[in-house]
């Protein structure tokens, strides 16, 4: 991979990001005309806080998708990590133990995924699909249809606390956006991840330790799922076995709407943030405008297709000009 190639990709990346930002702004402008409640500081913070959880899961997943892999177990990992962390919190009453347990569970599962993909050479889809069921099974067995609820106010700050009027999850979102941006764009390891996704053979031949980088991205994805589990617990004050399930497709969608390609090598963490924002805005908008329950799936689908469709068209035109 030569420098020119990377620079070219960076510039088209910035353009693509710009178009996605325009989609977000367009939805925002439309909503602020349609509802007086939309463009208020409290609603903006509300939307950002709602997007934070989705972004945290999707950001780790983005790294995996950049390598042309997939982590179908992220949401199930979140579910198990939440259940295990919840019982650790209940048993010890210590937020620190709870946080460490949740992260450890997420990282452990992610590392296991990494081993399946690297040591056993399983295709990522199959490895993480299998892991998804193993994790669901463990969660169901562990919880046996019960709910663990009621955590200490100290721990709950992570999800429902404020710092100078801004909810804590929003800080987490921007901190991890910054870390993710720096890691992917400004470190050798980050660039190597792009290279692996773009062309694994070339990456290996140019001396990139492909297997070790893959192990790293699956572990990071797991760790982010563990972190998201803690935010979930702290916001909802409760854990059930099946809490992860509804989050899998939105997490993948956030990455792809944000511009990541399942073929690898393309996508950014900031794009994923925009993807998470678009999905959150759609729900926010439908609730504010009181779209009927029967129409909500249709509206969600139509906006996703329109948003990504416009973006693809404009991007292709931009690329043809090059």
């Amino acid at each position, binding site marked *: 991979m030569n420098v020119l190639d990377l620079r070219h990709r960076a510039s088209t990346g910035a353009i693509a990001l710009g178009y996605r930002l325009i989609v977000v702004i367009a939805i925002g402008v439309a909503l602020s005309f349609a*509802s*007086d*409640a*939309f463009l*208020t500081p*409290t*609603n903006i913070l*509300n939307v950002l*806080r*709602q997007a934070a*959880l989705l972004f945290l899961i999707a950001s780790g997943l983005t790294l995996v998708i950049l390598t042309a892999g997939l982590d179908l177990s992220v949401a199930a990992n979140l579910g198990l990590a939440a259940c295990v962390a919840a019982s650790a919190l209940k048993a010890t009453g210590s937020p620190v133990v709870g946080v460490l347990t949740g992260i450890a569970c997420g990282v452990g599962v992610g590392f296991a995924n990494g081993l399946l993909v690297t040591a056993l050479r399983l295709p990522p889809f199959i490895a993480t699909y299998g892991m998804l*069921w193993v994790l669901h*099974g463990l969660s*169901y*067995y562990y*919880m*046996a*249809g*019960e*709910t663990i*609820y*009621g955590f200490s106010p100290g721990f709950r700050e992570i999800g*429902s606390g404020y710092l100078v009027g801004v909810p804590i999850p929003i800080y987490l979102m921007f901190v991890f956006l910054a870390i993710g941006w720096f890691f992917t764009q400004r470190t050798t390891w980050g660039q190597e991840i792009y290279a692996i996704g773009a062309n694994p053979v070339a990456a290996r031949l140019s001396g990139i330790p492909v297997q070790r980088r893959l192990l790293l991205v699956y572990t990071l994805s797991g760790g982010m799922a563990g972190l998201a589990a803690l935010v*979930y617990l702290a*916001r*909802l*004050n*409760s854990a*059930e*076995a*099946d*809490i992860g399930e*509804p*989050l899998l497709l939105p997490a993948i969608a956030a990455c792809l709407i944000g511009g990541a390609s399942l073929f690898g090598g393309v996508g950014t963490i900031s794009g994923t943030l925009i993807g998470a924002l678009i999905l959150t805005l759609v*729900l*926010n908008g*439908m*609730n*504010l405008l*009181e779209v009927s*329950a*029967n129409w*909500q*799936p249709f509206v969600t689908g139509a906006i996703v297709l329109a948003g990504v469709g416009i973006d693809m068209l404009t991007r292709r035109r931009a690329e043809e000009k090059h």
Partner: protein
Amino acid sequence: MKRAMLMTAAAFAMLAASGVKAEGEKIAVFTKNNTNPFFQAVRLGADSAAKQMNVTVTQFVPTKPDSIPEQMSQIEDVIVRRPDAIVFIPVDYKAMTPGVEKINRAGIPAVNIVDRSAGGKFVAFVGANDYTIGLATARHLVRALGGKGNVVIIEGVRGSLTSNDRVRGFQEAIKEAPGVKLLASQPANYQRLQALQVMENLMQSHPQIDGVLAANDAMALGALEALDGAKRKALVIGINGTKEAVDAIKSGRLLASGDYNGFLQGCMGTMIAARNLRKLPTPREILLPPVVVDKSNYQPYDIPVESRTCPKWESIVKTGR
């Protein structure tokens, strides 16, 4: 084959000798999933009834929640194992009809509980009516509001029977009270996180919400978290009478929860299956009356489901029916 027939004959002889009061019959219990506490309550109810009636209960639960093919293959397995009776909740009330017909063809008596199957033959049906539970719980909220105020409905999975019926009950109760205004009715798919987000969003466009009607307890508790987070107050009701909801009722956060009583449905279904085998009289249908759990009557629900016991048959079903 001959041996099997001989054994059946011997069993009949024993039955006759003991005056149709054989014990230790095997009953297979089918529930929908391992994730919803409601079905856990059904299973525990069946276990408790099994202890009381001295029968053996085996549980069948799809590993993938609500999986139609999995329940279908579990039925096939069970037919091979030949239990004496089956207590059955279809994962889908229409799609499982062929499965029920297989059970019928195998000649195993079955009791249908919770969701009424669209087809097949059953000894009896035990269930509760989502509409009347929704209506009774919503009326409770309307009364607590003094017959006036702004309310929102949080719906379950769109298009599902339970959600449609519960929401219809909510709407009816709101219609009865001219002073109560329905501001919005939005779906949160029975999910806690979605209910939290929907409630956060609705609070943005409605500065005054006095009451929240959620189609299950998880959503009611999610909505409560949203209200707490915004430091706003509203009376909230849910449905299912879960332990978590009862705790929230006890501490005064949740107004009430309509009880669907899975435990009792599990009890009744298993008891009917056993009584039917013993040729004791059984009703064709039991519809449990709606019970609204609130601050005044939560005590029996405060006991963890694991330590509850089924009531005696005679105390629920009047003899001579």
